[in-house]
């Protein structure tokens, strides 16, 4: 139990540090057209009022992050057996803090917008050649997933070929020095667990790729053609990033699975972690340098031309802000798209008025709650 607790504690601190560090810098990563989910002209970002809101948000999130971090350290010292609950619930507390810090600033940003007349024309774009929402799935880098599936297939074959020669029970769990400390009775299920798990993971990653391909692009008004080209480039980059990550995860599971089917063969912990961390670093660097939706990418815009822009002057005081509840949740029954560009931080938002989204989000919440209950029951025996 102690070793498990140490492992859980370290993971928990890492997750909290990562999320906690990311939380305050989200306003800097968000595109300049949005101030806490409110559509504003990019110049508005540099006003004293907007900066004050951002400072308020940063202070709240940094403070909240420190408190949660302190709480999880205190929890580990006071009641180490409950670390599993910390790892389950403290990240949720961080999310709650982020929302609590966000919503009041969103309301203030709305007020400021009407007071200071930060009006922007609500212009919508569509390309006649490529759809933003139906996504050109053939343009996705499928080869990453093909490579992943080939590796999974190899791990299936290796597991099945080695199966007759395996001892009973077989080691299935290792400590930090990679000495086996957990054994399971020999069965096909045990041996094939990692490959099956890998297939599920490839499917989830592929769906993530599809989601990115299908999310609606948010085009900046100043230079729509440039913004559009940036989005396309960014989408390609993200597609490759997710694909690379999938291959890395599959390789890691493949290597870990080898420990089960070749008794005595062990992989050092650092290697297993390196397989996953090394490809993650360039992905993080690229996504930060590209900005949200690729707003910082350099592109060639000659391939796209914009139609006549004369006829679209409109009421600039009106905007889609009203469709974004709290500036976070998009609910527009007129919009047939399920996935839209996010207004804060993330790259994909949902249109909560669509039935498939309602079903999907409900399934997600039920799955999360169910897995939490399952983990709680599982750990009740251990504590």
């Amino acid at each position, binding site marked *: 139990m102690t070793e498990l607790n140490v492992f859980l504690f370290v993971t928990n601190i890492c997750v909290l540090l990562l999320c906690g560090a990311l939380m305050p810098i989200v306003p800097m990563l968000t595109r300049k057209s949005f101030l806490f989910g409110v559509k504003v002209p990019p110049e508005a970002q540099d006003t004293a009022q907007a900066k004050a809101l951002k400072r308020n948000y940063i202070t709240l999130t940094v403070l909240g992050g420190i408190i949660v971090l302190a709480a999880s350290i205190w929890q580990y010292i006071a009641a180490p057996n409950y670390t599993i609950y910390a790892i389950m619930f403290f990240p949720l507390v961080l999310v709650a803090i982020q929302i609590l810090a966000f919503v009041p600033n969103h309301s203030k940003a709305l007020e400021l917008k009407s007071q200071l007349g930060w009006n922007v024309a609500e212009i919508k774009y569509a390309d006649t050649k490529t759809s*933003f929402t139906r996504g050109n799935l053939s343009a996705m880098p499928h080869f990453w997933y093909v490579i992943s599936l080939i590796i999974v297939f190899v791990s299936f074959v290796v597991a099945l070929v080695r199966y007759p020669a395996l001892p009973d029970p077989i080691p299935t769990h290792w400590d930090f020095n990679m000495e086996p400390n957990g054994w399971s009775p020999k069965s096909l299920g045990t041996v094939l667990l990692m490959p099956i798990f890998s297939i599920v993971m490839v499917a989830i990653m592929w769906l993530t790729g599809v989601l990115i391909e299908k999310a609606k692009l948010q085009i900046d008004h100043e230079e729509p053609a440039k913004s559009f080209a940036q989005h396309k480039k960014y989408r390609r980059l993200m597609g490759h990033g997710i694909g690379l990550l999938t291959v890395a995860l599959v390789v890691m599971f493949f290597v870990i699975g080898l420990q089960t089917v070749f008794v005595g063969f062990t992989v050092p912990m650092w290697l297993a972690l390196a397989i996953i961390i090394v490809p993650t670093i360039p992905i993080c660097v690229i996504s930060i340098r590209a900005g949200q939706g690729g707003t910082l990418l350099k592109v060639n815009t000659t391939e796209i031309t914009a139609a006549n822009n004369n006829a679209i002057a409109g*009421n600039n005081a009106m905007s889609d802000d009203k469709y974004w509840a709290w500036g976070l949740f998009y609910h527009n029954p007129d*919009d047939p798209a399920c996935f839209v560009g996010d207004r804060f931080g993330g790259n994909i938002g949902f249109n909560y008025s669509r039935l498939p989204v309602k079903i999907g989000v409900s399934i997600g919440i039920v799955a999360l709650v169910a897995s939490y209950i399952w983990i709680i029951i599982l750990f009740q025996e251990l504590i």
Partner: protein
Amino acid sequence: MLIQINTYAEKPIYEQLRDNIIMGIASGQLAEGESLPSARVLAADLGVSFHTVNKAYDILRSGGYIVMDRRTTAIVAPKKTGGDIPAALAEKLTMCAAEAICHGIDESIFAKACAENYRKIKGGDIQ
């Protein structure tokens, strides 16, 4: 071509869409026979109702700008040459002339502005 509409403009969305596409065809950004996105896809991309896009496509089809290929795909209609001014267009021209007269614009200036616009659009210079 990049279609642009303003959902809060006085001009209805279906008219903006129609104008975008006509301008695209006239300026050569939309080539003869090029297929347009389906009404559903375009509606989702623009974040407007499917019926709005359908209405625009209906108007474009009855105006002879697009034709429906196998009843599902809208494609840009073949180029016409040397035709007479259709009635709907003649009506618009009449109104333009009337407005110009009300503004006290000289006949020669009005004619020059018309010709300039014609040349600009045909040359693809519509920014």
